[in-house]
């Protein structure tokens, strides 16, 4: 330990002489966090394409491939990052612009919130509140468009690209399988619309994901809900064009800004034969509110009270006006049978064999054998049964996408539940019995700047660094052309809400340099970027 103090005393004057000049002038080095190559080669490669261009502008960049959940924690949990490449998946309820617009709301910028970059714009926040309380869709759209136009020039987050979901099905066994943005072939409409072409009227779906559990008060995964929503009814369903269509409800009426009356369909029954009444609906919403089920908390947040007002009528009282209430809340909460659930006090602690699986949906729960197989059968008593051609749905659980693809080749399954690997797409296209479909996604991959840190706290730097991203090349090379260059957080495929007239930030290195120069940045002899 002894030589060290001597060494540092020797070095200190030198350090004092040289560092001030450099430290004050040069733009601080930055770290770009992305996923590991094994987790997602696309985001990994995208980071290197971006870093290369940033270096060309004289920025000192280190790409840091990080284990996925560690990256999530650094981004959301600790906000300990310079810039991050991550993504948002396109869940159906996110087609309503509320969720994605919220990722730039300053009130979500605290630790753990959805705006870890820390974009703060009071004007934007005010518009966010206004759109959320605007019931008229056209008026609401005007506000949503204005918000996109407002934030884009500040570019706090860059939507890199939307990746198409490429899926396939066997066109010799089934036809009329509907395609839905963000859902692909495995949507809740598939069992209602698909028609068999052979004697086998049971649709076989294959996928590598399986529900964490089928407890409607405990599951925290998309895969749990994709399965459960087929045997539970909701008051409203979202059509393939994301219009709310009446389902268990025949009528949804907004009495005033904070009161919604719902009238139930007559003659509905649960799978055990008990009738579905307004008491069940009121019970369900109140049960979810008292149980504090984290997965639905955001949906239930605007709700103040739910009460039964008649045999088939329910009144929802909101704490404040909420435009997405009908689209999000009413379409996501399953109707539970009160006679089964009212005696369960701690539903989160049910062991798997005790979890009730009685719904009122168009399909009935048959079985779930973990790691192997799940099945549902048609509910002949359901109001939609007359138009359903399928007798049931089976889901075969594979260990990975390779297994799913082999299942598709050997005709073990009729369709994939999840996107194929890039390498499998041309192979699937070469098969005579398969139809391959590219479904555009409204989820997106983004690069988010930490606006609390240099140089990303400077609007001009963000603008220039965004212009240096060759997103066209990412889509063509990394996605093999199966995707779309990103624009605003509301995807182009979400046509009603997407504003096509915002600033685009096309790839242009000269423009990027010009932007930096205008803001007073300069370069030293080695081409390193210096502060204004």
């Amino acid at each position, binding site marked *: 330990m002894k030589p060290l103090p001597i060494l540092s005393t020797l070095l200190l004057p030198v350090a004092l002489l040289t560092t001030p000049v450099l430290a004050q002038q040069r733009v601080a080095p930055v770290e770009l966090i992305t996923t590991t190559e094994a987790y997602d080669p696309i985001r990994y490669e995208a980071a290197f394409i971006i870093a290369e261009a940033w270096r060309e502008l004289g920025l000192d960049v280190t790409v840091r491939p990080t*284990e996925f959940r560690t990256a999530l924690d650094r981004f*959301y949990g600790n906000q300990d990052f310079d810039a991050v490449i991550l993504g948002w998946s396109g869940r159906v309820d996110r087609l309503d612009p509320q969720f994605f617009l919220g990722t730039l709301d300053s009130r979500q910028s605290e630790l*753990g919130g959805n705006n870890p970059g820390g974009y703060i714009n009071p004007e934007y926040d005010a518009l966010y509140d206004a759109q959320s309380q605007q019931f008229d869709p056209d008026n609401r759209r005007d506000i949503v468009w204005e918000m996109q136009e407002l934030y884009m020039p500040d570019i706090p987050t860059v939507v890199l690209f939307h990746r198409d979901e490429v899926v396939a099905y066997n066109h010799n066994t089934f036809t009329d399988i509907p395609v839905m943005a963000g859902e692909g072939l495995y949507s809740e409409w598939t069992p209602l619309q698909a028609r068999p072409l052979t004697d086998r009227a049971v649709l076989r779906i294959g996928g590598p994901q399986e529900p964490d*559990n089928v407890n409607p008060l405990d599951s925290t995964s998309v895969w749990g809900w994709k399965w459960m929503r087929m045997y539970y009814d909701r008051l409203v369903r979202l059509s393939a064009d994301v219009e709310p269509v009446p389902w268990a409800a025949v009528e949804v009426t907004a009495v005033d800004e904070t009161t919604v009356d719902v009238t139930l369909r007559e003659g509905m029954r649960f799978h055990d034969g008990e009738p579905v009444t307004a008491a069940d609906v009121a019970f369900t919403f109140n049960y979810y509110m008292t149980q504090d089920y*984290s997965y639905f908390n955001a949906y239930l947040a605007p709700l103040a009270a739910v009460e039964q007002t008649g045999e088939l009528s329910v009144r929802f009282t909101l704490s404040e006006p909420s435009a997405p209430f009908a689209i999000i809340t009413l379409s996501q909460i399953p109707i539970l049978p009160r006679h089964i659930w009212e005696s369960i006090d701690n539903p989160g602690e049910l062991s798997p064999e005790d979890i009730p699986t009685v719904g009122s949906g168009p399909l009935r729960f048959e079985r779930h054998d*973990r790691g*192997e197989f799940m099945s549902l059968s048609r509910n002949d008593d359901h109001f939609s049964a007359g138009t359903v051609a399928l007798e049931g749905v089976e889901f075969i659980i594979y*260990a990975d996408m390779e297994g799913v693809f082999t299942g598709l080749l050997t005709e073990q399954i009729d369709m994939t539940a999840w996107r194929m690997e890039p390498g499998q797409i041309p192979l699937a296209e070469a098969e005579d019995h398969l139809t391959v479909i590219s479904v555009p996604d409204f989820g997106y991959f983004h690069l988010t700047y930490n606006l609390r840190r240099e140089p990303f706290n400077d609007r001009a730097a963000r603008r220039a660094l965004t212009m240096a991203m060759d997103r066209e090349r990412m889509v063509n090379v990394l996605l093999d052309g199966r995707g779309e260059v990103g624009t605003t957080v509301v995807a182009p495929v979400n046509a009603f809400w997407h504003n096509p007239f915002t600033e685009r930030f096309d790839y242009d290195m000269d423009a990027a340099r010009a932007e930096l120069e205008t803001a007073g940045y300069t370069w030293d002899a080695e081409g390193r970027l210096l502060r204004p």
Partner: protein
Amino acid sequence: MNRARYLLRRLLQALLALFIIATLLFFLFRLGLPDPTAALITEGLSLEEREMVRARFGLDRPLFEQYLIYLGNIVQGDFGFSFSYRAPVADIIWERLANTLVLMLSAILIAYAIGVPLGAWLSWRRGSGTDTAGIILGLMFRSAPMFWTGMMAILIFGVSLGWFPTSGMRTLPYEATGFFDKIFTLDFLAHLILPALIVALYYLGSPLLIMRNTMMEVYGEDFIEMARAKGLPERRILYHHAARNALLPVVTQLAVTIGLAAGGQVVVEVVFSWPGLGREILNAVRTSDFPLAQASFLIMAAFVITLNLLVDILYTTLDPRVTLQ
């Protein structure tokens, strides 16, 4: 030292080893794996909601307190609740372990049933072309990655020829629910063949080479000379005199192989979508499902330790030269 005291000492050693492993596992996973609730963020959960989930898992308590609860539960045979499945870990593991053992024990049986006599035979034909071919083949399958041999088998026998199913344990839909209903069917056998063969080919090398090499050593012993002098036929000397004495290292290897079998062959279970413990371990680590991962690895360790103990005891019976002193 008498046998009972020896056994007691070995048993205590085994328990100590298990305790150390349980401790290591607990801290290793918590230090090495990311927070299990981090993935909930992409599902749109806020920080408070995440904290609720953490509290339910008991992750909000001090690490040492968690550790004490964990140890206390293990002693009572309670492995806790899986974070991702929200089901008792024991229920998940026993089912998966059974599936894995059926696959692995069949594979080991095939490997040793072929490997041991083949190794003995090769030693007899030592230096010949057959010997060289046998060694090369054994080494080749031992070093070929199983995901590759597995995928080749699927491609050839599953996709092109269509002889065997390529994934899972049974053709769906099925009715059987009990474990024995499930495995005593022709359909199950058809599903078992490819993965079991791939694992067997991988395991084949060990008994083959160990048997061959030990046999060579045994050939130099005096009693073989003696048997030859008595004029016994070469085949009898090979299988009755030499082979029995060469079995000891093979038995050790067999025990170690069976011990490790509890963990399954993760790669094979993934390639063939076999619902075994190996695949579950992979999922548990991927999702930071601490209780499930801990219990899986603990069971594997218990298996290895128990079988080592058994071998030591078996040795005294198999080879009179090994005594308790």
